[in-house]
């Protein structure tokens, strides 16, 4: 198992190479660069000079391939470079943003699993009864609405109208309880819920469908022929099989939820990777763009790897070799 994981991790390297090269090229194809804004600054008289100097400092006058090699060499030394717009090490910016995004994405994932799977199971065990039909209809509805629409609805209802929950930031500024666990959780609820809702619907559909497929199989009849209680038949025999495609899907979705957080972060002014990425792209902050792209790519690839590993654990018929 360990060697399998290591081999798979090494296998990620070519993929990451291709992704970063493409991003590198696209990034330089975008018109303008980070320093052109200086010409707009009335206090800088010799803007052209300053820009040239800055560009030289950043190595932007080197050939593109040379810039890429430098970036890779620095990366291998653990150096992600310095942000043009903030004049701060990229690693520090990410060190601040990444935990916020992880908190949001992981909370959303937990909500998705805790709500989606039981919902699907309940629907499957009451198939075509009133509960199933009504919640299934609702689920399809939820699934077809994008997260950011929920975000607006949730803000309107719970912040604006009811004034129960805050709608921006990670903590309440300038109050004694600022930064308490409760304070942080109250800020987390709405963005996490907005991010989770469409996925809850999707996972309940997936669970329902898989469960209905498994429940008619012969081994379920065998389990019942042994006199097992319904709960054991459902959880040990049916769910244990129905869950396999779900956890695979879940692995694939890790990267998706992560990037899905981008829009939600903008709406809730959540200081995460989303905000960092958007501002970096608008300002042509190349080192930050590269670093965030790398992180998004790695999350997707790790998600796929996690999916494969979970599959191998959940399904004894799969052998990793």
């Amino acid at each position, binding site marked *: 198992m360990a060697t399998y994981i290591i081999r798979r991790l090494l296998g990620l390297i070519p993929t990451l190479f291709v992704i970063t090269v493409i991003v590198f090229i696209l990034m330089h194809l975008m018109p303008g660069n980070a320093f052109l804004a200086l010409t707009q600054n009335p206090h800088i008289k010799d803007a052209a000079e300053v820009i040239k100097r800055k560009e030289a400092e950043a190595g932007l006058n080197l050939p593109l391939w040379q810039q890429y090699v430098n970036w890779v060499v620095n990366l291998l030394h653990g150096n992600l470079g310095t942000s043009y717009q903030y004049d701060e090490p990229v690693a520090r910016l990410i060190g601040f943003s990444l935990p916020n995004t992880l908190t949001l994405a992981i909370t959303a994932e937990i909500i998705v699993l805790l709500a989606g799977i039981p919902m699907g199971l309940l629907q499957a065990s009451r198939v075509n009864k009133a509960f199933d039909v009504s919640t299934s209809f609702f689920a399809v509805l939820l699934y077809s609405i994008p997260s950011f629409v929920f975000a607006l609805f949730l803000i309107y209802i719970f912040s604006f109208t009811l004034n129960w929950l805050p709608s921006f930031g990670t903590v309440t500024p300038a109050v004694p309880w600022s930064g308490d666990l409760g304070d942080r959780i109250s800020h987390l609820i709405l963005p996490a819920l907005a991010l989770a809702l469409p996925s809850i619907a999707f996972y309940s559909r997936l669970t329902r469908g898989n469960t209905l497929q498994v429940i008619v199989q012969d*081994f379920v*009849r065998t389990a019942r*022929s042994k*006199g*097992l209680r319904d709960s054991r038949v459902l959880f040990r025999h049916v769910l244990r*099989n129905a869950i396999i495609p779900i956890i695979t899907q879940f692995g694939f979705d890790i990267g998706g939820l992560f990037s899905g957080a981008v829009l939600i972060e903008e709406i809730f002014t959540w200081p995460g990777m989303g905000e960092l990425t958007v501002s970096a792209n608008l300002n042509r902050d190349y080192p930050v763009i590269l670093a965030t792209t790398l992180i998004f790519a790695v999350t997707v690839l790790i998600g796929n790897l996690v999916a494969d590993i979970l599959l191998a654990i959940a399904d004894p*018929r799969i052998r990793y070799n």
Partner: protein
Amino acid sequence: MAEPLLKVRNLRTYFISKNSTVKAVDGVDFEVYPGKVLGIVGESGSGKSMTSLSVMRLVPGPQGKIVEGEILLEGQDLLQLSERAMRDVRGNRIGMIFQEPMSALNPVLKIGEQIGEVLVRHRKVTKAQAKKQAVALLRSVGFPRAEQIVDEYPHQLSGGMRQRAMIAMAMACEPSLLIADEPTTALDVTIQAQVLDLMRSLKEQNGTAILLITHDLGVVAQMADDVVVMYGGQVVEAASADEIFDHPLHPYTQALMASIPVIEEERERLQAIPGTVPSAADFPSGCRFAPRCALAEERCHEQMPELREISLAHAVRCLVVQGKTDRRENAT
């Protein structure tokens, strides 16, 4: 003779939907005696599996329903039990094995757990004790490496091994009745013989009665003490195995006998009788075998024959057949 262990009376199991009623089992009677093997034979679709699932009360719902009848296990009508009480019967007093041992075992649970959970459920043992007993059970069905097998998954075993594991599972609580629905159909001939031998020796050791369902008369000849022949959801002939093989009376039974292939390897689904089993949704009004019967008379198409005892312990559902016709005499 001893009291029957299982006595089925006028069992009717229908699949009822908006636009049709499929009479899968339509008034079936039979008995299984302690320590004896009752073979139920019949072509595909004659209602054998639904009969056995009815005894377990595992007819696939919501359309499948036992609409009438009595299923008396040691005098107690299983159809009157609550679902909860019925769960105490399944796997405990009645064990069941199925045709396809691959799909009948859970692919993602270890063999040991699948055997052990029956014991945990009915014998209230701990998981560790259950595993130990599972090893012993596996050994008793002929696994030399039983300690390893408990930790293996179904896909790691061959078809014959899986069926033996199924038998160990069904026998775990030493049920007084074992229902085996085509237990050897999916296996090749040599493995078939091993599995049948195993069932026979378990029967002799534990005094377990067996309800053996098959369309293979060869298997019936080897195993059964008594035989019930089913056609169109009904019993058309019932007698002891010797009697059935020596004096088959019903035209359908006679046709079945005639269709036994001579060479073992050619044993396949019975299909030598011209015509097909009528659809259980739309039976002919008279004798259900009439469209295919060589002896059919006019009245056969109008009047449904009753199952009547023609001689001692030999019942036939036919209007025409009267007394004994010895098959061997006829053949010469």
